[in-house]
């Protein structure tokens, strides 16, 4: 199958996943009603009387908003993971390698304890702080790597990222200890969830993810070249330092926003690139978008399972991604290595 066709398939699959997520939930809403509700909200078609307002809000505000947010977060994480693995030339590199999630958690913790809120941002002060702190941590980690090793090779970044992660986590532990009344909030913030996050989260995350993906696509050639090593990429004409900074920043922004808005959810950024590379080859022109779509679908499905499997209770979505992700990944990875 041609790669173009594969991309189209993923797009269709993504659409189907969103439809599935809209139809499945704790409340039984017949599919015909779901369609009418979505048509009403999206196209303004009139809603018939016998569809209760409750059903309508459940489908649109509780399920669709949540599914869209999950899709965006999954896409962001998967795309970011792809870039990290390529730039760091390490198949186990993840978007969390550079310390983004620790930094974001620290930023959020500071806002939680101080109760500080910017008037313009309101309740989005918290995710904004998380995102900024995450980006700052990455900036520091990469700068340190660049100081230590002029070409900031993959391994150096992994090491400095780890150092910063550990350091920031230690700070977090201290803060959680000294501000015990907020400990719970701080810890819970880190746990990934899409519950009770309304459409405004989607509106904010959407442009970040789109711009990020576009920037990554723009550099798909450079990404290909970088996988052969920085030196080789440089002698073939890539401005490696500039391009690497840019790519790592985009990856950090994508992961940072996913974490800032939804908490830390692992695994998707690790397995999506592997699965997609097996299927589409290594060319980033295809791997980046297909990865993003795959990550999105996976996250939507994982969230769907998390919120329905022990209804009315809810499982943490991070547990689901790991539980499904690990064996799935093992199967895909080792199947090839017969």
């Amino acid at each position: 199958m041609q790669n173009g066709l594969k991309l189209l398939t993923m797009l269709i699959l993504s659409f189907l996943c969103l439809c599935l997520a809209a139809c499945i939930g704790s409340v039984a809403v017949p599919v015909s009603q779901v369609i009418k509700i979505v048509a009403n909200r999206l196209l303004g078609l009139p809603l018939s009387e016998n569809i209760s307002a409750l059903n309508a809000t459940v489908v649109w505000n509780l399920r669709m908003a949540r599914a869209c947010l999950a899709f965006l977060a999954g896409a962001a994480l998967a795309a970011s993971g792809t870039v990290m693995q390529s730039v760091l030339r390490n198949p186990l590199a993840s978007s969390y390698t550079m310390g983004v999630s620790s930094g974001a958690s620290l930023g959020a913790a500071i806002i939680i304890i101080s109760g500080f809120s910017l008037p313009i941002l309101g309740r989005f002060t918290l995710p904004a702080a998380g995102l900024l702190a995450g980006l700052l941590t990455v900036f520091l980690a990469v700068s340190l790597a660049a100081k230590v090793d002029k070409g900031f090779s993959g391994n150096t970044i992994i090491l400095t990222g780890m150092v910063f992660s550990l350091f920031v986590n230690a700070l977090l532990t201290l803060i959680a200890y000294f501000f015990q009344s907020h400990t719970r909030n701080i810890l819970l913030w880190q746990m990934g969830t899409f519950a009770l996050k309304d459409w405004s989260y989607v509106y904010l995350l959407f442009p970040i993810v789109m711009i990020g993906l576009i920037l990554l696509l723009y550099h798909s050639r450079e990404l290909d070249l970088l996988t052969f090593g920085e030196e080789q990429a440089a002698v073939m004409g890539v401005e490696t330092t500039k391009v690497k900074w840019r790519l790592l920043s985009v990856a950090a922004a994508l992961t940072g926003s996913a974490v800032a808005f939804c908490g830390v959810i692992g695994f998707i950024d690790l397995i999506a690139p592997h699965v997609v590379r097996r299927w589409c080859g290594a060319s980033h022109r295809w791997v980046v978008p297909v990865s993003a779509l795959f990550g999105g679908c996976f996250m939507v499905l994982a969230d769907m399972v998390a919120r329905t499997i022990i209804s009315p209770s809810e499982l943490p979505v991070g547990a689901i991604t790991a539980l499904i992700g690990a064996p799935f990944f093992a199967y895909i990875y080792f199947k090839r290595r017969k």
Partner: protein
Amino acid sequence: MLQLNHLNCGYDTEDVIRDVSLQIEAGKIVCLFGPNGCGKTTLLKAIAGLLPYRGTIRFAGVEVAKMKRRDLAANIALMSQVSDTYFDYSVYDTVLLGRYLYGSKGFFPHTSKADEEIVRQCLEEVDLWQVKDQPITELSGGQLQRVFLARTFVQEPRLILLDEPTNHLDLKYQLELIERLRTWCQRPGRAVIGVLHDLNLALQFADQAVLLQAGSVALDGEAKEVLQNPMVTEVFGIDIKSYMQKSLLKWQ
């Protein structure tokens, strides 16, 4: 074509290359040799613009440090040693990447007919056209080296730098490689600098030979003379010439 003057460079604080001055003319095949650790790879990297340096490296009169990456790539190509972490690019795609600097920037980098033609030509020359769709992770060391060679040619440089290009190749391909390089070099404005361990090959095809020892030039001149110079025995610790001659006798 290439001029090095009082070149000093290295990694971190240590200088690996000390006060090297060289001149390389167009049309020449230069063999760079010396014991392990004498700085051959470092010198190649410096010429390719990968390392900061003190002194001058002038390519066609322009200082390498001042050239932009694309300009450097258009003129100088470096084939490094084969490493082991690669993603599953196909042979074709890998070689096509060598055309990067000729493509336009942007979302839909167009692969022109010219690009495709050059890739096809170079793949045929290294005998890998039949496996063009195979992932490079499934190739043998020798095949992989030929892929990178094709990619070097596809870049259409004026100076080719080779770091031990014959490592994984069997004899047939070694000789073919040399022939190809010789032919390539005959066109105007081209030169080749290769790091070779096999001094037989060096003797066979190099015009100029440079012996490096501890980062400095110990000998520099016509290949035949340099390779038979007694200093080579000193630097390497064995009498290469008599060893080779003895081996040759065994063939008769």
